[in-house]
């Protein structure tokens, strides 16, 4: 009996503890209770780059030195990219909430609408010298709702086409930069050049980097040129079965299985190792180029609907359930003020109009010449962000599963697109 009683006592204890942890209500997002003394702040990030982390720490140390009464330390905790959101939500579930966190654009609507993030617009605007009006309105859209701004989009990295000019010259093809200058840089020409180089030289033609037949949202850089989008702007209606999307997917399927311009699933191809003709990726990947071949960047090719451009964004938010949302928001205002945003721009294209110039980007991107940086700046202006949704994780998984049927020789884009919509329509309306 004693034993049984002790079991139930311990179990009740554990449950009581868990419930207490779970039951703590949402904290006030605008003001937190004044802490007794300086606090330790923690920000989760997915970069492990020593250059990035060194700069972050430098900015943080300067803030700590200036505000010894408010903050005693700022720690940047790296979580691997692949498991980032999963690990972050596990930390939230376990009550180990960080004060600030990087958030992927795909998760933005979910984080913004769920109440996980604190409103920070007020703090940023009220901070002396912040120049809030300098922030690019279109960059903030994804991170805002009617009540305000919930994260600062510190990185706005456009997708461009990296080209291995050595391979193209060797295969006797026209360089994409020439085609672009003549207004003939289209997806069809990119496909034909890629297919020709593969036939002549082997290796791979056009690679949509990181797509790998699973991360389908990377295809946004392709279907945008057909004027397609995966779902309606309000996120409630599937548009995979639109004629534009079906045409875009058919083009891609044929480029893989008929023309051999794009390597098929299960094939390893890496542009930066030199055996791939061209790749669609973000400019931040330029650091992987080692000078073993000549390269260039050109804007994304145009399609039947032109080329609206695509950017990948990442935001920094203040967790509403963190211990010190007020101190965290003040630190974020310092971390992203004009001076520090300029420093950060050497790694991450900032959302500040004044900094999105070829001159300021040139300082941090010595790998690019002025013409190439103009391409970068133009690519950011007016670009759409990659797909995102308030129920993104489920929609993503369901879409990927349904799209798998397309990645076979006999895959039929129209039939698969209908299947995708059947799978995700209920999730979009959830």
């Amino acid at each position, binding site marked *: 009996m004693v034993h049984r009683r002790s079991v139930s006592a311990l179990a009740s204890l554990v449950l009581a503890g868990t419930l207490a942890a779970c039951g703590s209500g949402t904290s006030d997002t605008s003001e937190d209770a004044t802490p007794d003394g300086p606090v330790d702040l923690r920000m989760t990030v997915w970069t492990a780059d020593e250059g990035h982390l060194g700069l972050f720490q430098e900015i943080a140390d300067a803030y700590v030195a200036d505000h010894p009464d408010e903050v005693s330390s700022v720690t940047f905790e790296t979580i691997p990219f692949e498991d980032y959101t999963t690990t972050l939500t596990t930390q939230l*579930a376990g009550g180990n909430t960080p004060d600030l966190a990087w958030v992927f654009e795909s998760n933005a609507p979910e984080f913004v609408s769920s109440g996980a993030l604190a409103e920070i617009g007020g703090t940023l605007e009220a901070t002396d010298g912040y120049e809030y009006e300098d922030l690019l309105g279109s960059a903030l859209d994804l991170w805002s709702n009617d009540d305000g701004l919930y994260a600062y989009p510190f990185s706005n990295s456009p997708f461009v086409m990296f080209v291995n000019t050595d391979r193209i010259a060797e295969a006797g093809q026209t360089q994409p930069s020439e085609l672009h200058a003549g207004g003939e840089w289209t997806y069809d020409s990119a496909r034909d050049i890629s297919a020709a180089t593969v036939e002549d030289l082997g290796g791979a033609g056009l690679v949509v980097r990181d797509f790998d037949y699973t991360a389908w949202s990377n295809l946004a850089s392709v279907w945008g040129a057909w004027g397609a989008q995966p779902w309606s702007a309000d996120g409630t209606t599937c548009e995979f079965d639109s004629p534009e999307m079906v045409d875009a997917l058919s083009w891609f399927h044929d480029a893989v299985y008929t023309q051999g311009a794009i390597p098929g699933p299960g094939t390893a191809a890496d542009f930066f190792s030199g055996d791939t003709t061209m790749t669609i990726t973000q400019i931040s990947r330029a650091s992987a180029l080692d000078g073993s071949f000549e390269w260039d960047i050109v804007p994304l090719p145009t399609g039947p609907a032109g080329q609206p451009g695509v950017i990948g964004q990442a935001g920094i938010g203040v967790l509403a359930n963190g211990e010190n949302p007020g101190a965290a928001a003040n630190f974020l205002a310092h971390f992203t003020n004009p001076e520090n945003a300029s420093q950060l721009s050497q790694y991450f294209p900032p959302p500040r109009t004044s900094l999105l110039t070829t001159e300021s980007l040139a300082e941090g991107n010595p790998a690019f010449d002025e013409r190439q940086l103009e391409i970068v700046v133009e690519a950011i202006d007016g670009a759409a962000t990659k797909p995102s949704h308030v129920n993104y994780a489920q929609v993503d998984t369901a879409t990927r599963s349904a799209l798998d049927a397309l990645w076979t020789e006999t895959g039929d884009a129209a039939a698969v697109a209908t299947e995708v919509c059947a799978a995700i329509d209920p999730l979009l309306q959830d």
Partner: protein
Amino acid sequence: MTSVPTLPARRRTMRWRDRDALYGYLFSAPAVLGSLAFVIAPLIAVVWYSLHEWNVLANTFTFIGGENYTRMLTDAALHDSLWASLWFSLGVLVLNMTLALALAVLLNQHLPGTTLFRVLFFSPVVVSLVAWTIVWGFLLQADNGVNAFLAALGVTGPNWLRGSVTAMIAVVVVQVFKNVGLNMVLFLAALQGVPEDIGEAARLDGAGAWRRFTSITLPMISPTMLLVGILTLVGSLETFALIDVLTDGGPGTSTTVLVFYLYRQAFEFNQFGYASAIAVLLFVIVLALTLLQWQTRKKWVFHES
């Protein structure tokens, strides 16, 4: 007067007995407390969570009774994952036990070089599972590894990880190759425990090699077969990392086994309550299958009837 000295003696005996009991409790306390804190309490907590809708991002924890359990009845993706689990576990169980037993019988022969082969077959067991799976991921690519080997033989191999059936075959084989060495060693130990004189007597009576194997060896090692069967089945139902690294549950949902579906609900979809209900379902399934194997042992395990 005579009773006076005996009373303190009896009290002393009782105290010693109490002290023995105390020592007993103290010595077992770490194990009992550890088990309570890390096995029993989480189990109770999972049942409790399964009765709630728990959204981590919104920080809500609402009691919804049995809703998560009724949701299971209509969740088609869960039903798919149950089928995937069935095929995966069945494949692993049959292939692993057959292969392990065949290898053990072969390596039980007194031939030169058997020690080397025992080491070779056992070595995958000590290799990191993730490293093992990543290497297999490369080997199973469309134009590499396995298919390059098949091409050399004039056979065009399928794109293993992109077809529903071939992906399931691939994950079963990779899982079996990883663990077959352990079962082989268990079978080998059992085979070496079979008395040679029984086989010898049967041989003199005219029993052939196959008859001696089925009528003497198999019944003699049946307790080990029960153990290996339970361990392999439970292990296969809990396979996660292999699926996560090799197929990510695809193509489609063909290799989304129950544990992987549970992980996805909890850590990708942030539906911890529903995931907890699936964890309870998995617990019940594993418990039921283990009990079933245990209960039927009397019918086929030597010494148990």
